[in-house]
């Protein structure tokens, strides 16, 4: 068996893993990355990227259907679902090749195969790889970064068979558009799929066990999102308890209790989007001191596990489960290993969250409820897209920007947005928070006119009772 030595071994080549590997190589460390499936992980191949491609089709379809509003007359537009899917697969493939190129360019060795942690007789740790093409190989290193990601959580009594009951994986490669679709779970993934299918013509029903959809977002945003989605024809049930989910040959049978009232409904297909579980199995973690809690690996603020020399990042560890969080964790772990001074751990309140449904939702920092809970005295500013010139010109006037400030220090505690392209706008607040802005600097920033981003400015003004356009 071949044994080789590396400075860092990265297990998993999703956004967390491949970014860690590239950073590691940039710092001059000898790096190897092991991937059991496709480079780019779930994000590139079965997650973030393909879904955005699909949602883009939905957006264009919606715009074409509304063409007369813009003075254009378009005769019948048809959806070629096969081509829609194909496009998303092509984009995934392209990026997949891109990651390969980047890793090679940075001289990171890539091994396709399954990795498992091995504790040697002398106490040292290594990674044993069952290579796809090269047989067994032992990778010795003082530092192993686990970035194996996560998979869809299943309902306790009903396993998604991939046929009538889908997880995200099947949901992004449907053979045809279902006439009626049940979406279980109203987090970002559930809402994005609901939006996609509904826009293309399916009758979509969303069920959520909590009292509102998008429970991680600010409650005002959840409310506005619900009302806008319902206006599009999506049926939404909150406080909904699933009592039974069964399938016969052709349809999905749902037994549900909503606010105490029992109900039976049938659907063509169902998507289970109730969260994720970390891929902690088959890694040999049981032989180490690595601690696993509720199917995620426990780490400190530097991404160290309880076993010295083993690090973990991304969806494999705690929330938020976002690709950009994984990327930053990868960099932190690598820089910590490299002994770089002056590192700062990730600040969760500086990580933005985006939902790419129609309309989009983007947020960063504390919600209003959370800020109150933490004892802050706050100022809240709001600005509706209805009062923004560009939004009207675009014909996208549904949306709003909400900003929350700490009265004492003027710190921007949180920003919450819903509307057209807000996922592209939230980085402004991200930069502001990273630089530790107060309301003063934001008020002095010159936003271009006419842009949707001006509503970000007006929201800040509104918090201090000096809104001009409202």
């Amino acid at each position: 068996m071949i044994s080789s030595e590396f400075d860092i071994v990265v297990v998993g080549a999703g956004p967390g893993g491949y970014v860690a590997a590239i950073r590691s190589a940039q710092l001059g460390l000898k790096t190897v990355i092991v991937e059991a499936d496709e480079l780019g992980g779930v994000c590139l191949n079965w997650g973030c990227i393909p879904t955005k491609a699909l949602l883009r089709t939905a957006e264009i379809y919606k715009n074409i259907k509304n063409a007369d509003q813009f003075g254009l007359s378009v005769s019948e537009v048809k959806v070629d679902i096969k081509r829609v899917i194909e496009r998303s697969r092509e984009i995934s493939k392209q990026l997949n090749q891109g990651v390969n190129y980047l890793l090679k360019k940075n001289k990171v060795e890539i091994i396709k195969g399954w990795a498992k942690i091995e504790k040697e007789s002398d106490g040292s740790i290594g990674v044993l790889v069952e290579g796809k093409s090269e047989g067994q190989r032992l990778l010795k290193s003082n530092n192993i970064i686990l970035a194996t990601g996560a998979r869809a959580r299943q309902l306790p009594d009903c396993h998604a068979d991939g046929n009538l009951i889908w997880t995200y994986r099947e949901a992004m490669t449907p053979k045809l558009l279902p006439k009626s679709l049940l979406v279980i779970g109203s987090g970002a993934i559930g809402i994005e799929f609901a939006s996609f299918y509904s826009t293309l013509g399916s009758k979509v029903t969303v069920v959520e066990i909590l009292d509102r959809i998008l429970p991680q977002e600010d409650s005002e945003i959840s409310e506005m999102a619900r009302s806008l989605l319902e206006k599009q024809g999506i049926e939404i049930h909150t406080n909904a308890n699933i009592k039974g989910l069964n399938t016969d040959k052709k349809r999905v049978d749902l037994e549900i209790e909503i606010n105490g009232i029992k109900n039976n409904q049938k659907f063509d297909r169902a998507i289970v989007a109730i969260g994720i579980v970390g891929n902690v199995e088959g890694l040999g973690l049981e032989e180490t001191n690595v601690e696993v809690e509720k199917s995620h690996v426990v780490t400190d603020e530097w991404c160290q596990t309880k076993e010295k020399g083993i690090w973990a990042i991304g969806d494999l560890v705690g929330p938020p489960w976002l690709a950009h969080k994984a990327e930053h964790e990868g960099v932190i772990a690598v820089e910590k290993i490299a002994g770089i001074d002056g590192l700062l751990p990730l600040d969760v309140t500086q990580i933005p969250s985006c939902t790419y449904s129609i309309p989009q939702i983007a947020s960063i920092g504390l919600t209003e409820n959370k800020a109150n809970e933490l004892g802050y005295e706050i100022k809240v500013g709001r600005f509706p897209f209805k009062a923004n010139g560009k939004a009207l010109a675009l014909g996208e006037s549904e949306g709003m920007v909400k900003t929350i400030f700490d009265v004492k220090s003027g710190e921007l505690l949180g920003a919450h947005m819903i509307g057209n392209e807000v996922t592209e706008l939230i980085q402004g607040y991200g930069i502001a928070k990273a630089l530790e802005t107060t309301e003063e600097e934001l008020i002095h920033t010159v936003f271009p006119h006419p842009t949707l981003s001006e509503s970000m400015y007006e929201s800040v003004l509104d918090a201090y009772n000096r809104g001009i356009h409202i």
Partner: protein
Amino acid sequence: MPITILMPSLSPTMTEGSLAKWLKKEGENVSPGDIIAEIETDKATMEIEAIDEGKLGKILVPEGSDEIPVNSPIAIIIEEGEDEETLENFKTPEISMKTTNVNTGVEHEEKSKEVVNAGLAEDESYLANGEGETNLPVVDEGRVFVSPLARRLAEKQSLDLSLIRGTGPNGRIIKSDIEAFSNRNLSFKSNVDEDSYDYVPADNMRKTIAKRLTESKRDVPHFYLKADCLIDELITVRDQLNARSNNEAYKISINDMMIKACAVALMEVPNANVSWDGDGIKLYKTVDISIAVALDNGLITPVIRDANEKGLRMISEETKLLINKARNGQLTPEEYNGGSFTISNLGMFGVKEFNAVINPPQGGIVAIGAAEKRPVVKNNVLDVATVITCTMSLDHRAIDGAVGAQFLETLKSLIENPMGMLL
């Protein structure tokens, strides 16, 4: 762009000056090197030279104006091509003394010449932004790197940024550094005193005492005069007076007699019955003596009005009444406001002598110590006498040494020869 001319600082201790004379008129041309005005300070008169080319657009401070703070705008020079309109729309930036380091002792030698010539603060980055807020003290050698949030938090806690280590990018001071710094101070304190004290939040009286006496010590230049007074005569007179009181209708105390003596002395030396008000000296027409009364958790000073015109019996009764009211929290504002001089007696606690703090805006306070038998020299022979040490604290802005000494001499004379109080 119009140029603002500031009142220059001509010495490290100069905080304000007078504009003695303008040597240029509004509208007159100004060239570099021209003398444009004369400044008068506490020590000397200096000339201001222009360094810019232009016209004296506007004089902001008229000739003969006094007490102009250093760095405040005194005139505006408009440049070639600008006119009155530019002047109207121009707002002089607000500059606080903190942001220019013109006054620092070390830089003084090199800076003083430049200061006299300078039309504008040397580095425009020191200027405040439009909101009128100042930047934190800027070190000549380099900027203090600090995030806006951290800067504001430091300001609110009056923290000196130069003491704080930055852990942000490039050593920038960030919010967590400010928090760590404050907490470090807190935890240090609590390690030392944990559970070793009870806490009494300040009530209004305590807050007032703290505020006024701090102001007094900070703003009033105290000086102290002390005299030992032989009071055997005083005691004799007191006893004689009290012997005449039937059924204890009244009981005169040494303190009552001190009050009377003080009042009469102030009448005889009216320049000691004064108050400094910033622009001049108020000579009180009446002698109203404030008496310091100790309360459970503080002190208050009820006033005996026209004390010089009242007999000892009246002073005694009034004093008792006021003290009683004071102890029961029943004094009305008319009873404790005002007063031209205070008398404070700690003799009953055995205090030999002490320096009291003046109650602004009064001109002084006399501190009475304990009466004790002491060895004294009488007619070149050692003898024993009952002596009280009186220490006077006086406000040097309104009362000079000679006046104070005269007052003390008069007071001592009245105490030692009580018959003088009858006049």
